[in-house]
């Protein structure tokens, strides 16, 4: 081994926590096999590794659990994978403060378990997110349906420690929930996809584990009807924690056989299930038992007035099953070619987006499935085709670019969150940069002047 990067990394870590050569192959990013994969166990080691990479001009890919490595453009280069799984400790958890300090490599599931033992949780529920690390979740700022009540990590991170591109360790924020001391550096790093610095520690605000979790699931014939219910809820003083619309948009009003459609198993088994529509609105409620009980009936009534065909009260295992059914949109599809796009609109435009997705699906010979966090206007569209090879890619790309163009006209936001690498090599997964891009490029130049952190992966090729 005469690779200086490997040699110097080995001096820092020892051979036991370093992969190189053929051993590095499983950590290929978009087909690029890195020269080295390093697993530091301390912030100091991360800093030393970045110092080496900076000196040698090696491109660094931070890696938590690897669950979202298909987000963004393929990197320009991938020399050193910085695996953070050994930085996996809860550093502090003070229940009386409703805060915790954690290392970036801890998995969300493991963290929730540790916090749950003391009656608290990090109010983040990204679908299929148990393995994901806190650092990775912060870098991508992905969230789940309960963002309607709790926000995203952007709202929960109160302090941060990062290692900069040159190996300098800095912090921002602090350990208290209310703090305006200096600039809000947390916001700079959360959602920056590891392109400005490597996140190594996070201080987060927590919430009490709700005593009861429940949901009202209504089925509707169309997204418009489901929006009617959503709108009534948004105008009411009711306090649901999540609002999820699921279904499979098709061109003619959306009525497709509900077995093949979006209604997940276990939902719609209420009294009028037989002619229930294929669109499901899942309204989550949680808190003290009397609060949950008091909201169930009004939510029920609002959904009925909006035209719900069936209504089911979910709790316990049924609720978990319904949430898991929603999560299938995040599983690796069996279709040969696919892409999952995320669009942000104002909530009222979600039905229109479903219609557009249906039209694009019909036009290009695709199936589309939708899971929308409709209260926030965040809609995930999974495009799938049975056609393989470049034919399948062509179809998915045409539909995805159609969604992107529609989004641009709507002032909506767009990103292709996930797709096979062959497809992503042919298309920009990000929306076109806007007027604020000069500031973003300025930030990248200021914080990573040599361009070694996840080079080229972020919007506009940052």
């Amino acid at each position: 081994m005469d690779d200086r990067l490997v040699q110097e990394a080995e001096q820092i870590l020892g051979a036991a926590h370093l992969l190189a050569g053929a051993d590095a192959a499983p950590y290929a990013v978009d087909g690029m096999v890195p020269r080295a994969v390093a697993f530091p166990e301390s912030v100091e080691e991360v800093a030393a590794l970045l110092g080496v990479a900076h000196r040698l001009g090696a491109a660094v890919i931070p890696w938590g659990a690897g669950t979202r490595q298909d987000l963004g453009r393929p990197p320009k280069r991938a020399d050193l994978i910085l695996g953070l799984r050994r930085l996996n400790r809860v550093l502090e958890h003070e229940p009386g403060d409703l805060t915790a300090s954690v290392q970036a490599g801890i998995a969300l599931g493991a963290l929730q378990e540790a916090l749950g033992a003391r009656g608290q949780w990090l109010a983040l529920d990204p679908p299929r997110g148990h393995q994901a690390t806190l650092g990775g979740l912060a870098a991508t700022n992905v969230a789940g349906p309960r963002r309607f009540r709790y926000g995203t990590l952007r709202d929960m991170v109160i302090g941060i420690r990062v290692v900069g591109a040159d190996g300098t360790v800095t912090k921002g924020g602090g350990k208290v929930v209310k703090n305006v001391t200096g600039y809000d550096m947390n916001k700079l790093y959360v959602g920056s996809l590891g392109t400005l610095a490597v996140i190594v520690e996070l201080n987060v605000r927590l919430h009490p584990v709700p005593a009861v979790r429940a949901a009202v699931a209504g089925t509707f014939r169309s997204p418009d009807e489901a929006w009617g219910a959503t709108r009534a809820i948004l105008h009411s003083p009711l306090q649901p924690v999540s609002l999820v619309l699921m279904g499979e948009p098709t061109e003619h009003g959306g009525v497709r056989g509900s077995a093949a459609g979006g209604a997940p198993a276990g939902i719609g088994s209420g009294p009028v299930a037989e002619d229930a529509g294929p669109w499901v609105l899942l309204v989550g409620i949680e808190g003290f038992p009397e609060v949950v009980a008091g909201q169930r009936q009004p939510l029920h009534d609002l959904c009925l007035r909006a035209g719900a065909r069936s209504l089911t009260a979910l709790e316990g295992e049924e609720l978990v099953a319904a949430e898991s059914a929603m999560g299938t949109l995040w599983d690796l599809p069996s279709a040969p070619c696919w892409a999952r796009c995320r669009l942000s609109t104002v909530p009222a435009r979600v039905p229109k987006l479903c219609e557009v997705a249906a039209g694009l699906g019909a036009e290009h010979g695709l199936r589309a499935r939708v899971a929308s966090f409709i209260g926030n206007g965040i809609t995930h569209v999974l495009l799938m085709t049975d056609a393989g090879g470049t034919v399948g890619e062509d179809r998915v790309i045409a539909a995805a670019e159609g969604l992107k163009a529609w989004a641009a006209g709507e002032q909506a936001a767009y990103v292709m969150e996930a797709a096979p690498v062959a497809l992503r090599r042919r298309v920009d997964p990000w929306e076109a940069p806007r007027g604020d891009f000069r500031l973003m490029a300025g930030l990248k130049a200021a914080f990573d002047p040599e361009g070694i952190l996840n080079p080229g992966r972020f919007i506009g090729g940052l």
Partner: protein
Amino acid sequence: MVEARIVRELTALLGPERVVGDPHDLIVYECDGLTLERATPGVVVLPETAEEVARIVKIAHREQLPFVARGAGTGLSGGCLDLGGGIIISMARMDRILEVDFDSRLAMVEPGLVNLWLTNAVSKHGFLYAPDPSSQSACTIGGNVAENSGGPHTLKYGTTTNHVLGLEVVLPDGEIVWLGGRVQDRPGYDLTGVFVGSEGTFGIATKVVVRLLPAPEAVLTMLGVFETMDDAGNTVSQIIREGIVPAALEIMDQLTTQAVEDYIHAGYPRDAGAVLLVELDGPRAGMALQADRITRICRENHAREVRIAKDDEERQKLWKGRKSAFGAYGRITPNFYVMDGVVPRTRLPEILRQIEEIGARHGLRIANVFHAGDGNLHPMVLYDGRIPEQTSRALQCGEEILRACVDLGGALTGEHGIGVEKQNFMPMMFSPADLAAMERLKQVFSPDNLCNPGKIFPNPSHHGETTQRMPGIPGGAWI
């Protein structure tokens, strides 16, 4: 001083009635709510559109003149002082609500809009704007954006940054750009997030897209009366430990409740060691049970009395007392100096003991009123500026209190900002490398450092007071 030809150019742009240059008229703009710090501005202008703001900023940029935006001047850290004798850009005339969209639960407003006016405008539709700094009847949304303002209800609802979706801003070179917008999670760096709380050093917001929330179905305000501060503090900890997150948890000490009673008769007992104000909001269902839980917790912590406001009038009165604390102090002391330190909630009893010691050591009384739910303290150092040495001792008290907060794992400021007031304390919390990263961020927005210069970062030539003139009682200040 701003050169006469520049004043003429500004006057040609805006008309004489929107340019303030008379030294007598400029006195109004010398300070904000922190009257210890003063600086006379070069000239004050009052634009009415984003385009006018951009043209003013372009002139400043061309002439390399410093400029600073100003809202209502209710800030408490000297953040809107014109230290460089440049241009103060008053946003007072840009105070319209441009759009309200209840389906999307958002509003687009101009920065000069008074915070409370927004809630007043949407309340008949059952909505509100959640951030409610105590100055909300005067302070502006733009100022709230600059300072990332909080308020009593941040415990449940978060601060301004959690409620701003997008901003139209004039960058320090005069370009107008949008950061964020109506929709959430736009790909790219969170420029909205870093702009909020940047204390006016990144540019000037000219439109603000904010979240609206539905007004809660029910609100219930309770008053717990305690013999000792420790009992009140322990009650707060237990409420949180039991999984209850009220909308607000506020504590006042005896010095404060007595001053408030003399001032506005809010109905607080005069002889209690501490009172705890608890507000619950949300669905009506279950609220009575929540109140029962809190009553029980108060009793377990030796509350002498637990009172539930029986109607809206009593509720308003209890809150008026809390929000008038600042004004009330004016009746019991010639001068006071308010701090804004934060500690982890569980360290409240410890910091209060330390504050008492610090006051005793300097021979000054310190009153306490604070957002107990999130550990945000407002220790009020009472002093008489006419007595030699008292001002410097008050400032010394403040510094020691903040050092104690930081040593307990807290922060220098929870909602007032660093401004000029605490700039030299920044190294208590941040290393030179931390500050260098912040400086790098600032350079991206403001490479010429003309936009509100001289704030936030340590300045060795600034020692406590900017001014020689002593303030009177700050009448229009809130916390």
